[in-house]
């Protein structure tokens, strides 16, 4: 399977090999569990024959049922159990096959995990990893297509990461496991089959550092999670009409590397954030606000795009309209740069979502 970005985000010197996102995650778990006996992985279905789409494959055989086990359908209490085990010195990786189930965990995540270190005056730590996957596309519908990262970005004490490629999936996961704080990892089902250069040795993609994925001079485009890939495709379309876009992947949403984004936006004078969530009170709103506060430059033109403000439908033509795509990114940028020109829409055949082109159901 081809990918829009087959090269290592860290450049050519990584000494890795092409690995799928899902296999990079699995490699991260295995390496961290070998390194540290206190790491364990649990969650509904992590030990079944499908192994969370393969992301936990082989772990049960290597590490046993004490360290790789399923749970009752009790997301609230299981989150508390993970928090308690973490406070007691273990390093749990709590896995959810869909992000939507995190809503059942909000009480524990917001009231306990995020606050325990603070409200106990530093006496305890919560080195907890919460894996969650966006189910987006192929008719997943209202309750399996949501991206809820902005809800967690709102809360001090939680870290939030949304790796967009296999290299970062492994490096961010290893960083999350080693972090002494609760980390919400937002994975993306449509990214699971994508490949990138991934080093074999363990490495960390540490919190709080964004990456300029592709340079440009006319506009700064920030993509979140899978939208990084769509923004890169939009960048190609824009190049054909003479517009140079810089694409930035924030990688970690909390803590957020606003300096890298602000520097770029101050230079290009334009900032578009393409989220894979709703825009209201969203990550895009936060990034735009922080950039304007940081630079103090009211001349920077800003725009947000994301999910349409409605519930995600399963019907293909409705679903296609629901998500931003390379065409919506490109035409929005075009309108920012050339407000007097006629609106421009790239060829629709070239604006379909990258992974909708490749992805085939059923899951």
């Amino acid at each position, binding site marked *: 399977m081809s990918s829009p970005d087959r090269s290592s985000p860290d450049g050519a010197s990584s000494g890795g090999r092409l690995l799928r996102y899902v296999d990079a995650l699995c490699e991260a778990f295995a390496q961290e569990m070998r390194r540290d006996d206190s790491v364990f992985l649990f969650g509904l279905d992590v030990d079944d024959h499908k192994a969370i789409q393969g992301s936990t494959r082989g772990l049960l055989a290597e590490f046993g049922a*004490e360290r790789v086990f399923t*749970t*009752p359908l*009790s997301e*609230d*209490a*299981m*989150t*508390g*159990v*993970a*928090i*308690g*085990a*973490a*406070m*007691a*010195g*273990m390093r*749990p990786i709590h896995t959810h096959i869909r992000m939507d189930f995190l809503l059942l965990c909000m*009480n*524990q995540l917001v*009231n*306990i995990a995020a606050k*325990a*270190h*603070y*409200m*106990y*005056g*530093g*006496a*305890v*730590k*919560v*080195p907890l990893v919460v894996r969650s996957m966006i189910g987006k596309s192929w008719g997943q519908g209202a309750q399996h297509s949501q991206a809820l990262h902005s809800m967690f970005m709102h809360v*001090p*004490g939680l*870290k939030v990461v949304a790796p967009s490629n296999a290299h970062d999936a492994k490096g961010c996961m290893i960083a999350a496991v080693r972090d*002494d*704080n609760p980390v919400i990892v937002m994975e993306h089902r449509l990214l699971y089959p994508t490949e990138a250069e991934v080093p074999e040795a363990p490495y960390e993609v540490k919190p709080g550092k964004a990456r300029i994925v592709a340079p440009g001079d006319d506009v700064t485009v920030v993509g979140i999670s899978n939208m990084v890939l769509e923004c890169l495709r939009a960048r190609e379309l824009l190049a054909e009409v003479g517009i140079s876009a810089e694409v930035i992947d924030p990688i970690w949403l909390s803590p957020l590397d606003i300096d890298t984004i602000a520097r770029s936006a101050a230079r290009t004078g334009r900032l578009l954030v393409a989220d894979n969530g709703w825009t209201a009170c969203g990550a895009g709103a936060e990034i735009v606000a922080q950039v304007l506060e940081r630079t103090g430059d009211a001349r920077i033109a800003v725009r947000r795009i994301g999910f349409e403000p409605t519930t995600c439908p399963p019907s293909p033509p409705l679903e296609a309209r629901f998500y931003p795509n390379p065409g919506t990114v490109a035409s929005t940028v075009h309108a920012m740069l050339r407000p007097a020109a006629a609106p421009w829409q790239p060829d629709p055949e070239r604006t379909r979502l990258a992974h909708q082109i490749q992805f085939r159901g059923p899951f």
Partner: protein
Amino acid sequence: MHVKEPANDLVARLYRQLRLIRTLEEEVARVYPTDRIKSPVHLSIGQEFVSVAVCDVLRPDDHVSITYRGHAAYIAKGGDLDAMVAEMYGKAAGCAGGRGGSMHLVDMAAGVIGASAVVGTSIPVATGFALAARRRAGGSVVVCFLGDGATEEGCFAESLNFAALHRLPILFVCENNGYAIHEPLAKRWATDRLVERVATYGIPAQRIDSGDLFELRERAAEAVAAMRDGGGPAFLEVTCYRWYEHVGPNRDYDQGYRPESELAPWAETDQVARLAALLPAGERERIDAEVDRRVAAAFAFAEESPFPDPEELHDHVFA
């Protein structure tokens, strides 16, 4: 009841703990109207015997999870008294550095793993400590104190199921004082057959409604001993009574939601007075004097301790 006559040194030890908790909380109630304690306090006066009985059978390496009405269990498990009072004053030397207050007492060195103001949330967290304890296989156990209101939360059922499934070394102790804030059991439970509900998870469950500290201590000792041998979780429902208001320093029988006649039988069988009467007068007076000195010292420490530096507001957001 089949409890043998307690030895004098046991009575002395238990009385000292009871008296310490009672005296400290009475002092909290006395100081509270001065507004020097900057934290909502939920007094356990009348319920102290539950924590004292159960914690007496624990080892230092065992853990207890307490509730926002957790002063008694914090002290009974050996939590630092100076740090406790300083925490209520919001002082830097508080057990949570002034970040927790009365409802979030913690002392990891003593095995007090903290409390939550959101009812029931500490039940699964305590269960997670039990999971870690089982993995370490050192024979240590966790005691999870909870109130009757917490048994209505979903995570209570979820945690019981998980603890039973994995045979975790955790003793759930429900202090059933009959009220959640001001709502009596009759408005919250269709039946009072709590231990039957718990038993269906495969957890041995007993109700102790005698208010007898020694009976409770024996039942707790049996449960903990079985647990250390890999016996899995157990559950004790202990009937008790909250003498003071839900939150604050007053008795609130004038508020109309509960009659003072409910208090009478509990006041008559008050375990602090009962144990005091079991001790020789001289020994009791020696303990009382020591406790009074200790409590006075803790309040003096809190009064004299400095507040945290405002510059430290952002400390401890991340580890």
